[in-house]
């Protein structure tokens, strides 16, 4: 275990385990995600995706295992320093308070500000840049609770970016979004990764993972069942094995990336049918 080469940059999880109420949720997970990569965490409902993100951000404490980012152990890092290193864009972020969009994004400056310090011009600039980065500069003066789902998602992402993290964790960043907003959220994450930010997003849609991620990690029942680049990981066999549905993996005619098509069916019937033939799959 210790003789494995630990990458000094990027995210590295080593045999991370976690139980809740006596039930094993995360069962010895190893993950390696290079710095600046866009990783997609996929898997069926209840596979432990959100929990794993919470463990990486130390929102919940792993029972055992190592969580290292850029050579530093995240669980033992001082809280404020950790919050300047890792940011989390939660799935459904809502508040009862009547906050403006700027107020919300300014919350991302919390780990950079002292108890009595006022937000400085620098903080204001970071907030402005974060909103601009997610294409939400025009929302600055709006009240958060008046925003649409897609707008909220962007602002939540901007709040995470205002923490100026090196590692961004996003939990279902496309949830409740229309297709256009889904794609723009995903391309934004991919763009942030190209800019040097390490991104790990829990995604429901395998197609999204295939189309946007550099690295796919498949989680099932708290274990990593496959990890690697999308083309090698997302095979019909894996989809059948993990999700119990038939899938055909094609090549996207526009991007050349893997394109998945699904069909329901009993695993028994499916065993013979995985095929790359477009007509019979549809």
């Amino acid at each position: 275990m210790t003789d494995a080469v630990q990458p000094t940059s990027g995210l590295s999880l080593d045999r991370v385990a976690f139980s809740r109420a006596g039930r094993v949720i995360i069962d010895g997970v190893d993950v390696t995600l290079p710095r600046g990569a866009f990783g997609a965490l996929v898997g069926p409902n209840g596979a432990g995706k959100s929990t794993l993100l919470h463990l990486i951000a130390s929102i919940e404490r792993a029972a055992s295992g190592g969580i290292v980012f850029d050579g530093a152990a995240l669980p033992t890092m001082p809280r404020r320093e950790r919050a300047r290193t890792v940011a989390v864009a939660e799935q459904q972020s809502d508040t009862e308070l009547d906050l403006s969009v700027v107020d919300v994004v300014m919350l991302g400056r919390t780990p950079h500000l002292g108890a009595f310090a006022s937000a400085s011009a620098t903080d204001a600039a970071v907030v402005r840049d974060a909103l601009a980065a997610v294409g939400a500069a025009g929302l600055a003066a709006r009240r958060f609770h008046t925003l649409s789902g897609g707008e909220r998602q962007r602002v939540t992402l901007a709040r995470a970016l205002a923490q100026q993290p090196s590692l961004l964790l996003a939990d279902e960043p496309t949830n409740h979004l229309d297709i256009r907003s889904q794609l723009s959220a995903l391309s934004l994450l991919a763009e942030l990764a190209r800019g040097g930010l390490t991104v790990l997003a829990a995604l429901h849609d395998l197609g999204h993972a295939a189309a946007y991620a550099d690295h796919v990690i498949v989680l099932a029942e708290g274990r990593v069942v496959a990890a690697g680049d999308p083309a090698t990981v997302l095979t019909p066999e894996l989809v059948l094995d993990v999700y119990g549905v038939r899938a055909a993996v094609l090549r996207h005619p526009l991007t050349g990336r893997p394109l998945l098509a699904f069909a329901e069916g009993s695993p028994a019937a499916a065993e013979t049918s995985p095929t790359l033939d477009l007509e019979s799959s549809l």
Partner: protein
Amino acid sequence: MTKAGMTTVQQAREAEVVKTSRSLPAAVWAVILSVLLAASIVVAVTIGPAGLTAGDVWASILAHLGFGDPTLSPLRDGIVWQLRMPRVLTAAAVGAGLALAGAIMQAVTRNPLADPYLLGLSSGASVGAVIVLVLGVSIALPFAAFAGALVALGFTLVLAGAAGRITPTRTVLAGLAVSSVFGAVTSLIIFWSATGDSYREILNWLLGSLAGAEWPAVAISVGALLLVGGPLLASARTLDAFAFGDASAAALGVNVDRTRWLLLGGTALLTGAMVSVSGSIGFIGLVLPHAVRLLTGPGHRALLPLSALAGAIFLIWADTAARTLFDPRELPVGIITALVGGPVFAVLILRSRRIS
């Protein structure tokens, strides 16, 4: 702060938005409320029989602080300095402390209906205080009240969480159950000890009264406000981080569990100290923070100090009304605060139903 020489007009405009238009009004409100508080203290002392003027009050204050010679007759000076001033100052400190406790509880529990009175802390503090008074060890009064508040808070939270997730509604219902029981215990203890006018004394503890407030009460309430309330103000930015819930606060670098228990413990201590000198005065912790949010928004760096100032002013006038409306008879001041607070509570319930 304004070193951006090459800022474009566009950026400057956005920076203005980013600074939020609220930061200035909050400072202005602080000045306005501070002036109002000082004026309220002086004016409230003049109100009542004896026909005192604000000048008399100033003269008495200055004389007692060692500036200038006493110009008032001993009787009138006694009314100012021994009777009314301690009562008004106690009202101010209790109002400030309860409003501050309410604002913090609302943030920590993410429950807009949280209030030391509604969640049973005040009733618990009353039980603690009454037990100590019956036993005759009044030196322990604020601490016993603190212990009572803590026990009541514990009961409320356990009861609210027993059936699963703690929701605002369940918390308020649990608080109702706890405060009913603790209120009954307070009444039983007073009735059983039967010294003097039990009914009046029971009313004073259940509804709150500042009738007996003398300088020791000032020392307890102002002392608790400074020693406990002061440090609690430092939690403002942390409380802001709770806006999107515990996980989000943790992701922003907040030690959620430690913060929650420290702050709830702090509010219990503050509530205990205040209840030990005033009985359980209701709704201040509910009404004032919500009123201040309307003025300055939900940011806690403005909300906490302004709620305290507004609570102080509010309770000074509620108590002035309590002692003068039916002069020479006194109303328990909690009747006044409930008359104002009950409807506000109702509005909050209606509004929270619309939200959910």
